[in-house]
Structure formats: C-alpha cells, structure tokens
C-alpha cells in the first residue's frame, strides 16, 4: 500500500498523478546546505549568519565547503545507522547567509559531494541563493557548468530608499545584470521581494513588483517584513525611531502583489510564492509536503518521516565554530532533535498543507476536526468552496492572509 506522508494526497493542481506523487513522496529526499556568511549584516535579518571571514575550527569562508562535505558524510552514516537509506537526491538548495560569498568551485564541490554520497537524480533541481553584489556573469556561468539549474536573487525592493532602510547595498541594476546572466547560462531564476518595510508606500511596492515582473524571471517570492525584536531594526522600532509595520498596510500590499503577479501570468502556489506554471521551487514544495531532507550547516534543520517508526526533526549546532568542532571530532553536529508526536504531526499537517495551492486532503486530516469547521471557513470566504466539494482545503486569498487564524481554530479541535 502506498502511504502518503503528511496526508497531502491527491494534487489536482499539479501535473502528475496521485499514485506517482505518493510513491515519490515516500522516497523523496532533499538536501539543504546553509552557508552562514555575509558581507554585512542587514538590520532586519536574524538569520544565523556572520560577517567574520574565519570563525575558527575550519568554519571559515575558505574552509567551509570542506566542513560541509565532512558533515554530509557523517549524516549519511547516521542515516544508515538509523535504517535510512536515503537518495537519490531530488533537489538541492544552498541558502544562507550568502552562499555566493564562497567561490563557484566551492559550491560546485559541495554539489559533487552530494552526488557522490547520495547520488543526484537526473533532472534534479539544484538552486543557490545569491546576493546580486557577489555574482557576475562568469560566476553564474560557472554555476551552470557545475550543474546548478536555478538561482534565487535577494532583490527585496526596486526602490532605493526602501533598500537603504533594509541596509541592502545592491542597486536594481545589479539584479537585472544577474538575471540576464542567468538567462544566458540557462538557469531558471527567481527574485525575493520584501514588503512592509518602514517608509514603503503602496506605490513603492507596486514599483518593486512591476520591476521584478519586467526582469523576466519565472518565479517570485514576496515576504512580509518580519521584525524580530533582537535585530537592529527591531530595536529601532521598539525605540520609536522607525514605525512599526502595519498589518493592514501589509494586507493591502499582498493584494497588490497577488493581483499584479496573477495578471502577469504567475500563479500563487504557496502563501508567499508565485511562479509561472511548472516553475515552482520543487525544493520548497518538499518542505510543505513534509518529505525527508538533510539540513547541512550551522543551525540547519533536518526532517525524517520515519526513523524506526517515528517522525523526527533534528537541528545542527548554531555557532559555526562549535559546529565545526563537532565535525572535526567525527560527531554528527546535531544540537537537538524532537520526535514529532501524532498530535504535533497533525498540527504540522495543518500548518503546511493550508499554505499551499494543492491544499490539504480533508480525508487525511485529523478526524477530530468536524466537517462543519471546513464548511464554515468556506462560508467565511477563507477556503475555496469548489476545492472543498472535491475534498480539499485550499485557501482563498483571504484565507492565505488569515492563514494562521484559520490554523489556530483548527488546532483547537486537536489535542
């Protein structure tokens, strides 16, 4: 029998059959590599990243690829020790930080190592994030030669004063040059945008979305600015120096993005992601479909749906120096792990499934949630009534904007 992990089941909006997808999800395995270095720290960012070149124990920009490859070997052994014969790898994603702060040959070496350790399947999606300041045409060509298929630029905004508030140093021209080089090298390209930056007007945001569309990319992510209290921006907002992002303003900007992107031929496939048909990020869809993945690098999370009968999530040591030390001592650098209980699995299923266009298969959802609850959401305009008739919970635009409120109400039926 084919088990559908996470219960996402049939996917009418995707191009492949349900049997194929279930079977595929059962064995799907992805690799994420976190690169914890940046040229400078942006005031809004709370990611695990460092501006120092060398953090010790081999956790340096120069030595990083080597350390990460060592970790991959240790993780592979850990998997085998736990009865997990993962692979081949369907997607690879290099995120950060700024992966492109490393040399193209370093990035290539990591991809080669993944292929050597787990095998990379034919037609796999291999993505790196890129800072427009750190890449040029040669760099991008080198990535393509190394097997990369996709590049995602942190564009954030096309408006100089917004970029300034975000501490971003690149210019809109850098981004355009990067996309053009990617197109020439045959890479799929994507840009990330941020809305809700203090001082950003609705027109500023329209400009950014339109500029991104005009770049000719086939994938756009648009994220509401999330202010973390521990960041420089968080402190400036707490001190009243910068205005606090306003939910209504962000909702208006979400509407603008969804409208403009839809008009330009992009479909939403996750709350914050839009793509031309067929250009979805398969790697990221894997997270929302709850597949297995290995997270390599300081602070990276890994997920395995069936470790001797239990779903497990583990995360690496956060600080690169301590992380590297563990690797040097031949230990898998996990800082901690959790066994995901049945209730937690049901909660995560709601959290993830309700974010995506393919939605949640209601037949697979927690049985304690009454049918009336789904119907009520459809009546309130939060779920698509037609999809609901077909047994799937798919959020409307309003349902995407009120996603967490909806999840919360459903969680009350569980536990």
């Amino acid at each position, binding site marked *: 029998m084919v088990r559908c992990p996470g219960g996402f089941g049939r996917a009418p909006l995707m191009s492949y059959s349900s049997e194929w997808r279930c079977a595929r999800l059962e064995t799907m395995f992805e690799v*994420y590599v976190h690169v914890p270095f940046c040229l400078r720290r942006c005031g809004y960012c709370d990611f695990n990243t460092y501006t120092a070149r060398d953090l010790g124990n081999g956790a340096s920009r120069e030595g990083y690829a080597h350390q990460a490859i060592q970790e991959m070997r240790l993780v592979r052994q850990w998997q085998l020790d736990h009865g997990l014969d993962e692979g081949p790898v369907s997607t690879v994603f290099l995120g950060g930080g700024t992966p492109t702060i490393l040399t193209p040959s370093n990035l290539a070496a990591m991809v080669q190592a993944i292929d050597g350790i787990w095998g990379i399947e034919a037609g796999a999606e291999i993505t790196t994030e890129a800072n427009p300041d750190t890449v040029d045409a040669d760099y991008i060509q080198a990535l393509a030669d190394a097997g990369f298929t996709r590049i995602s630029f942190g564009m954030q905004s096309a408006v100089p004063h917004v970029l300034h508030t975000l501490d971003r140093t690149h210019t809109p021209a850098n981004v355009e040059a990067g996309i053009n080089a990617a197109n020439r090298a045959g890479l799929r390209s994507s840009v990330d945008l941020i809305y809700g930056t203090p001082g950003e007007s609705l027109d500023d945001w329209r400009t950014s979305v339109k500029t991104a569309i005009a770049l000719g990319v086939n994938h756009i992510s648009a*994220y*509401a*600015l*999330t202010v973390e209290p521990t960041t420089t921006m968080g402190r400036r907002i707490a001190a009243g120096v910068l205005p606090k992002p306003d*939910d*209504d303003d*962000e*909702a208006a900007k*979400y509407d603008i993005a969804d409208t403009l992107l839809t008009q330009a031929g992009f479909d939403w496939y996750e*709350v*914050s992601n839009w793509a031309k048909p067929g250009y979805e990020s398969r790697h*990221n869809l894997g*997270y*929302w479909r709850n597949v297995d*993945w290995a*997270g390599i690098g300081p*602070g*990276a*999370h*890994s*997920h395995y749906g069936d470790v001797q009968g239990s779903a497990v*999530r583990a*995360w690496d040591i956060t600080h690169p120096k301590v992380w590297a030390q563990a690797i040097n001592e031949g230990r898998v650098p996990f800082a901690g792990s*959790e066994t995901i209980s049945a209730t*937690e699995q049901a*909660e*995560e299923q709601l*959290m*993830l499934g309700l*974010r995506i266009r393919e939605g949640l298969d209601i037949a697979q959802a927690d049985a304690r949630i009454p049918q009336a609850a789904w119907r009520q959401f459809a009546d*309130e305009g939060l779920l698509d009534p037609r999809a609901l008739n077909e047994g799937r919970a798919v959020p409307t635009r309003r349902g*995407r*904007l*009120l*996603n*967490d*409120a909806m*999840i*919360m109400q459903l*969680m*009350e039926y569980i536990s």
Partner: protein
Amino acid sequence: MATQHNQPGFTDQSVIRNFCIIAHIDHGKSTVADRILQLSGIVPEREMRDRFLDRMDIEQERGITIKSQAVRVPWTFDGVEYTLGMIDTPGHVDFTYEVSRALAACEGAVLLVDATQGIEAQTLSNLYMAIDHDLTIIPVLNKIDLPSAEPDKHAEEIAGLIGCDPSDVLRVSGKTGEGVAELLDRIVTDIPAPEGDPQAPSRALIFDSVYDSYRGIVTYIRMVDGELHSREKLEMLGIGMQHDPIEIGVISPDMMPTKALGAGEVGYVITGAKDVSQSKVGDTITSAKNPATEPLPGYRDPQPMVYAGLFPIDNAQFPELREALDKLKLNDAALIYEPETSVALGFGFRCGFLGLLHMEIVSERLSREFGLDLISTAPNVPYEVTSEDGTVHRVTNPSEFPEGKIKRIVEPVVAADIITPKEFIGAVMDLCQDHRGVMGTMEYISTDRVEMHYRIPLAEIVFDFFDQLKSRTKGYASLDYHEDGEQAADLVKVDILIQGEKIDAFSAIVHRDKAYSYGVMMTKKLRELIPRQQFEIPIQAAIGSRIIARENIRALRKDVLAKCYGGDITRKRKLLEKQKAGKKRMKMLGHVEVPQEAFVAALSTGEAGNDRDTKDKIRAAQKTEG
C-alpha cells in the same frame, strides 16, 4: 536563647508593658520589630529571618502586615525583668477596625516615622486613634542611617503633632539596630503598667483571630481582668458561644502553651472554633464557670465598603472558587460573598470587601494559593435606589440597578484626610474636585506640609483615586478615609455593548456628569485591548437605550507568518501552540474573544484622556442628551 523568669500566668502586672507600633507602610515597622526580638534574645541570631513577624508570603512580598501578631518579649531594665507585649498592627486604611482593637489591647504606642519621609495620613489617623484610647505615645524616627534622613525637620513636625519636645523624639535605625535598646528602655519607663483587676471574673479582649491549617482558629487575646486557665470552658460574651479551650499560651516568638494567663498579659487561645466568625475580633472572652457580666467595649461587625464580582475564567472552576472562598473566610470575618450569575462571565461570586486593598489581597490569594484564574469586575459601592413607584433597592451590583424611572439614589460618603507637601495643594484640590469632593478644613502640620479634609463619595475613591493622588503629588501625598454617612446623588448606569450585546460585567454606575467620559474612555480602551478578529466589532456605550459613544474594531485582514521553510516549522508550531494556550485565557463574549486585561482595565478608567479625539467624542456624547 535567653531564659525568661516571668512565667505566663504568674507575672505581676507591675512588670508588664503592652505596646503596639504605629507606622506607615514601608516606614520600617517590621524591621524594628525584628530588631527588638533579636535584642531581647528570644530569637537567636542565626534564626533571624528578615521580617520574622510577617508570616504570609504576600505580606513578605508587599512589605505590609495584614494580620497583627503578638509577641511576649523579656527586657531587663535596672536589674528587673520586664515582660513586654508587642502587638503588631496592620498599617492600611482597610483594616482600621483591626487597628483600633490592637490599640485597645495596649497602654502605649510607639509612633514610628520614616526620617526620610515624615508622617503620613494613615499614621496620623492611627495616631489620633491611639491618643483617643489614652495611650502613651513614644515618638520614634526610623531609618536615621539613610543619607536622605532629615531627623531634625521631622522631629519638629512630630513634636508639633503630639505636643512634646523635639528632643523627646527617639532616633533609631532598624537596619543597624542603633537606638533600639534605648527604645526598649523608654517603653519600660514611659508606658504605664496594666491596671486590670486580677481578682475579678476574667475578661480578655480578642484583638485578632486567625485560621491556621494545623491548629484551627488561633485567637489572640489581651487579658484585662482575672485569669484564664488551660482547662476552663470559655464563653464569647458578644456572640454567646461556649468553647472548650484546646490550648492557651504565649508567643515568644513561637507558640508556647501555658497553664494560665493572668491580668495584663497578652497571649493566645485555641478554642476549637470552626472559623473566625465564632471567635471575632473585638469580642470578650470570659470563663464560662465564673463569667463576667459586662463585655469590654468596642465590639462591632465590620461592614463591607466595596463590592466586586469574582468569576473563574474557566467556569468549571466555580466549585473550586467556592471552596477557596470558604477557606479564606475561615481567616477573614470581613469577607462576604454570595453566588452571582453574569451573562458575560458565567457563574461567580459577588464579594464584599473592607476596601480596595482588602479586595486586591483576596483576589491575589485566590490566584496564588488556590491557582484560580479569575476575572474581577470593576469594584462598586452599595447604593440605595428608589424607583418611581417607591420601591427601594439595595444595589451592590450594576445589574441590580432597576430599569425605568428613578426617584432617588443614595450613595455612601467618606471623610478623607490627605497629607501633602504644600506645593501640591492645588493638584490635590483639583483631584478632589474632579471626584466630587467637598473641602472641609486644612491645617499646616509643619511649615511645608498640610493636612486637607474632604468629604468624597466612596465610589469616587474606589476606582483609582489613590493612584492618581500618588501620581499628581509625585508620591508624596498620603490618604486616609473613614465612613461618613451618605448623600443623594445624580447617578446613572452606563452599559457597554459589544457587537450589540450588553456586557453586564462592564456596566457601571457613575455620576451623570461623568457618564459621557466614562463611556468614551471605556469604549476606546476596549478597542485597544480587544484583539482584532476576522470580523468588525462595534463597541458602544449606552445610558438606557441611548448610545453615547461608539468605537469600531476593524476586521483583522492579515494573520500569517511570511515564511515557513524547513527551519521554521518547529518554531511556528510552538508559537501556535503558545497562542492556543493564550486563547484559553480569553473570555468568549458572543463570538468575540476578550482578554482578561479588558476586565482589569475597567478598574482604571477614572482619568479622562486629554487627546483631541477623546474630547471631541465626549462633547458629542454630551450632545446626545436631549
């Protein structure tokens, strides 16, 4: 540990000195008391715990003494061992009656004043009470070790108040112990010995009665006449009940059973009474075999001055709340309660308290000691409302306010005494005027401090008068008040409606002049405190069917985290689980989730906002009156 020669029941009145300490909160009474215990040798150094006398956690944390205690302390002066009865008194206005009983149990009082602060209104009122009881006053300035102490200035002030020479004012430091031995000597030399009749039928004044979970009711007494013996049946003269004593004894500093207590001595008796209402403060204990006929003067039942509803957030906790109140009642004769049903809040109790502090202490103990999550409604005072048809209603809850035309409303009034530095006279006058106060006299108690006398409706004080007084006088003013009759007033009931539904827990009885600002403030406050939900929520204030203020909580448009990638999932799940737990603390009013703070906020809407929006809305509300 020091050996005491004077044995309980065999101590001549001539070597007994009974005294209490009158002090304001934070003026260091407990520290000085601790120092006395230590100097007398009855508490060994190593067992000396700060604030030995304050037993309950809340007392320790708040630095106030709720319940008095009585300790037998030996002190040798000129080669003679004296037995001092130190009676610790509560320091707060709510417990005035208990203070008066403690004073009645003494011949002298130590007036303890913080040398950095000077005397405060409540201390002054207790001082006057002590003078009324003909107690010998020993004036003492404490905290002279502090650099900011101004002993000369405050000695003048005290001397002026009690009519002594400034040089008679002792100077001590509870912290360092300086001057405390001299204080004990002065207690021996200045305070008169008790003058009861050791041969007469026994009479003992109950000045405190507490519930102890191991011992049952422990009743603190001051022997006036005769003797009580450990195996003698006792009678409470006031309520006419008899008890077999389980134990009598003294506290020095722990409970020590004794065979007898003689005239003039201070001690305790454990009677087997089930709760403190069978052994009430102010009552007289006598021997059932040879009873006295006349009770000692001064017994009365304390009357609740403030009422509020207490409701468990989770209505399933109602039986636990009842049990908890029953337990508190064992120890608190002044606490009264009866079941109440609120449309908004479900089942709870309408409770009567002596005052606001009493109310706070009770709610805090309910949550801390009994783990109850409670919503407390805004406090209100008892009104007498006469309908047009002549029926009279006693209203202790806005929901009892009769519908239809009202002929007359009578509210309780207090006499308030406020002591303030003279630069704040104007601020205090403004505040009292805002609260419908009528000024009486004003006296300078020193060159730079005045005592002002006002008559103010109690309802105006139970909201946040005290907080405002403190903030407008930079914390320098102090307040004391006592009941002073009643008066007719032009009051109306203001209702608050959420999504068109009247929320009984937010209804308030307020003066007509203030109804508009109350309505505007309350709707604005609720708009801030109630989180936005998926639909629009109108919030209205109304007098009868007339809407006087309206605010709108706009529908929530966005509630979603931007990112949920591999590393975000656990964090997001935990965040949602936490929010889910937080929601359990919300009260559902119809479809609307209202946080507990909204109910608390209703307690502090006294001060009208000064912003333009508030002013405009109040003006608009006033215009609705045709």
